């Protein structure tokens, strides 16, 4: 492709005329990268794009890689906390009538485990991976709306702190991660525990909605020239579809939690059947979010697999178009399944059949993806390294979870095993198999890019086998004990039921699985401190994130790459074609057209700012206060408005003015 193709007359010339007119100050032109030698170019860009030094500087950072690193570390800490919840529960359940924890603490434990894993670990960590990788993969210098991105992190941290401080004060939610009414309603949920659930949801959803919008706009408008829709990497497609699912699913849970807190706080009757409301409305609204939520976690994981397999199979993904269409199909279908979480409420027959059919239908695009990956491996010359082992672990585990999913889609079977450990086994196979194993694969795969060092391959293999054996030992027997009738969410069981031995075995597996994460944490730290230097592209992969140094500089790319192929680095082995002409004294990046990625605008990207942190504090304090009085919204509005004005008011940087 020549540069003339990318700046065709029909796209640019007429617009250039209109933008020169009008009452605007002339652009103060600065030095451009055209013809600049590499050393000066790096010096200029490093100065322009750096995160300021000092504590205020660190808190003001808008670099997508800095924010993503914070997200990743925070989400990993929440994974550890949620995991510890699980370990305590497993110790309690390892034998009949153990007295480690009582029923009240147990209720908080399983609620915190679910809430932490879903809202504080799974969703943030897949989005954080996207925040780090998407701008690099599409060849731009920062995410769209960098300050909104920074804001989302602070809101997420305050939501997580809010939940865990509540837990430390023994006022953590104790109503299950989906907090059904009437149990969580004003009548049966005294105290502030259910309010903590409702507001904690609001924090984390605000944060993930903000990230979703930033991701969509980055993918639509900031792709490197030439990266037309058919050349977008599969991982980026996965994040794009996921972000759309977030945009249309997350409002449902915000509405649910807002309705709940209104019922509890100001006495509305939305979920109160005695006054014209309806308790099942809660379930509908919650699962309208809750089912897509599974795919919000799963789709990015499939994107990771689609990025890892070609790199190690040494060929582009088989069926690129099929994989993209499957992602989109899963995104749509994920909205048609929610009622299968509610088969036990007594549905009309036609409704049950519809949701059974749609639940089985979604297996088709997922199956297409799995066969495309297998074909890629079949036709390639696979190199088996730790990321690939975890991908195999994903295949094995997720397929089992998928099979029990098809079983549960059938109403008679679902009614039999409803609320038993069979369901617990099913969704842990789906979530850990479908999301955590790909995430671990991704950790080994992209760790060298993030830190510049390799993780230990030997420890990685130990980690894999320990995780596989531990996971299956912990969760496979749950299918059996579930079929025997053991209900979930009970803090103990009598010895006469004969569930003691199998539960001891499950607990041993859980401990083994937990130890595998301890080994993983050690490998992470060891790799970051002592790992072998990685170089730019240790796996010889083909997408753009490997075209820059490891770790990438603050500006990502010295010059914006020009894309000619879906695996640009494999297509351009000699020299990467790049674009020139951007200013280097201000944060300038390229905005391109949505479908064809023709270069369109030299856009300024936002400079570091402390205001997103202040805005997050104002918003967070308002949410916190609002569990005590509705007036919080009124009093909170003023500081929120002030911080938002501070955020958007131009400070005289060229980035603001031109």
């Amino acid at each position, binding site marked *: 492709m020549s540069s003339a193709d990318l700046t065709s007359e029909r796209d640019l010339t007429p617009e250039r005329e209109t*933008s020169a007119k009008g009452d605007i100050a002339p652009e103060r032109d600065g030095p451009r990268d055209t013809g600049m030698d590499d050393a000066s170019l790096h010096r200029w860009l490093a100065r322009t794009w750096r995160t300021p030094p000092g504590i205020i500087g660190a808190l003001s950072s808008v670099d997508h890689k800095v924010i993503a690193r914070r997200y990743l570390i925070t989400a990993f800490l929440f994974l550890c906390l949620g995991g510890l919840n699980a370990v305590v529960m497993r110790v309690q359940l390892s034998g009949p009538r153990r007295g480690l924890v009582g029923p009240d603490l147990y209720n908080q434990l399983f609620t915190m485990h679910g809430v932490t894993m879903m809202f504080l670990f799974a969703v943030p960590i897949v989005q954080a991976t996207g925040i780090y990788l998407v701008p690099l993969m599409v060849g731009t210098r920062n995410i769209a709306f960098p300050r909104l991105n920074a804001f989302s992190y602070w809101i997420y941290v305050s939501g997580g702190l809010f939940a865990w401080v509540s837990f430390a004060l023994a006022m953590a939610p104790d109503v299950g991660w989906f907090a059904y009414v009437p149990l969580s309603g004003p009548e049966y949920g005294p105290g502030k525990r259910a309010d903590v659930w409702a507001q904690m949801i609001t924090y984390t959803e605000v944060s993930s909605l903000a990230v979703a919008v930033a991701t969509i706009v980055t993918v639509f408008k900031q792709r490197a020239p030439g990266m037309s829709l058919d050349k977008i990497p599969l991982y980026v497609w996965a994040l794009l579809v996921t972000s759309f699912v977030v945009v249309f699913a997350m409002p*449902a849970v915000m509405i649910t939690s807002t309705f709940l807190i*209104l019922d509890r706080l100001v006495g*509305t009757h939305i979920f109160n059947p005695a*006054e014209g409301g309806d308790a099942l409305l809660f379930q509908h609204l919650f699962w309208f979010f809750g089912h897509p939520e599974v795919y919000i976690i799963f789709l990015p994981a499939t994107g990771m697999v689609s990025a890892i397999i070609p790199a190690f199979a040494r060929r582009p993904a088989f069926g690129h178009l099929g994989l993209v269409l499957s992602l989109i199909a899963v995104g749509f279908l994920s909205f048609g399944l929610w009622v299968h979480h509610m088969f036990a409420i007594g549905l009309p027959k036609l409704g049950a059949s519809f949701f059974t059919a749609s639940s089985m239908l979604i297996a088709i695009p997922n199956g297409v993806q799995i066969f495309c990956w297998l074909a890629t491996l079949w036709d390639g010359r696979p190199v088996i390294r730790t990321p690939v082992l975890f991908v195999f672990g994903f295949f094995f585990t997720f397929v089992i979870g998928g099979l029990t999913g098809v079983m549960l889609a059938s109403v008679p079977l679902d009614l039999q095993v409803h609320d038993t450990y069979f369901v617990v086994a099913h969704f842990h196979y789906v979530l850990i198999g479908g999301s955590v194993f790909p995430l671990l694969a991704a950790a080994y795969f992209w760790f060298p890019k993030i830190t510049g060092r390799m993780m230990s391959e030997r420890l990685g293999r130990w980690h894999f086998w320990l995780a596989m054996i531990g996971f299956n030992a912990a969760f496979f027997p749950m299918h059996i004990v579930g079929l025997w009738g053991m209900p979930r969410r009970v803090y103990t069981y009598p010895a006469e039921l004969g569930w003691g031995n199998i539960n001891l075995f499950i607990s041993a597996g859980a401990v083994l699985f937990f130890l595998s994460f301890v080994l993983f944490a050690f490998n992470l730290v060891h790799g970051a401190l002592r790992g072998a230097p990685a170089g730019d592209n240790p796996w010889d992969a083909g997408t753009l994130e490997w075209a820059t140094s490891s770790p990438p500089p603050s500006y990502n790319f010295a010059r914006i790459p020009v894309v000619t192929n879906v695996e640009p680095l494999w297509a351009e082995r000699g020299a990467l074609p790049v*674009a020139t002409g951007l200013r280097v004294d201000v944060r300038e990046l390229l905005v391109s057209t949505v479908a064809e990625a023709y270069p369109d605008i030299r856009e300024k990207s936002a400079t570091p700012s402390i205001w997103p942190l202040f805005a997050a504090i104002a918003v967070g304090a308002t949410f916190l206060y609002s569990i005590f009085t509705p007036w919080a919204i009124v009093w909170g509005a003023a500081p929120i408005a002030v911080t938002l004005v501070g955020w958007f008011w131009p400070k005289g940087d060229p980035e*603001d003015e*031109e």
Partner: protein
Amino acid sequence: MNQSPALDLAGLPTFGHGPRSPTWWGTLGFMALEGMGFALAAGAYLYLVTLWPNWRLSAPVPNHWPGTIVTLLLVVSLVPNHLLNRYAKQCAMGPVRIGMVVMSLLGLAPLVVRWFEFPALNIYWDTNAYGSMLWVLLGLHTTHLITDVGDTIVLTVLMFTHHGYSGRRFGDVGDNAFYWDFVVLTWIPIYLLIYWLPRLG
């Protein structure tokens, strides 16, 4: 990795209006998710309507006049809003300043009338679920109205400072006009649900 220059971006403009600008797409994204919130709240309301045969639950019908006046004000405001958008595209400072003042006033006017809408519902939020849903729907839209009017006023002030003489700011004015369309558009179904649906039953 070695690089070979293949494309020159030096001649590109530094801002663009409408779908050319990332901010426009961001605004569209927020409209999508807020629109989804409206749709779900309306869906929840309709779900309850179908559930109870005697909907309105023996409450008096709401007085539609304040709501109707708000509707008329909002619809009328679309005309200056679109003129303003056109001037913003031309980056014409004089008319844009006038337009921003007009739009700030046309944002405040429905807010004033909105104050009288809540009592005109003729029911409190804690009387029954019908009252709750009416207050929720009206409250949801009022929140949008307040935020957008606040945003418009801040932007108006900004356009009277030297910061206004920038392509980006004119782009912001365009996006603000775009968002106002959304605020007006979402009101129409909510207006019908609040004031006219109860009259059907």
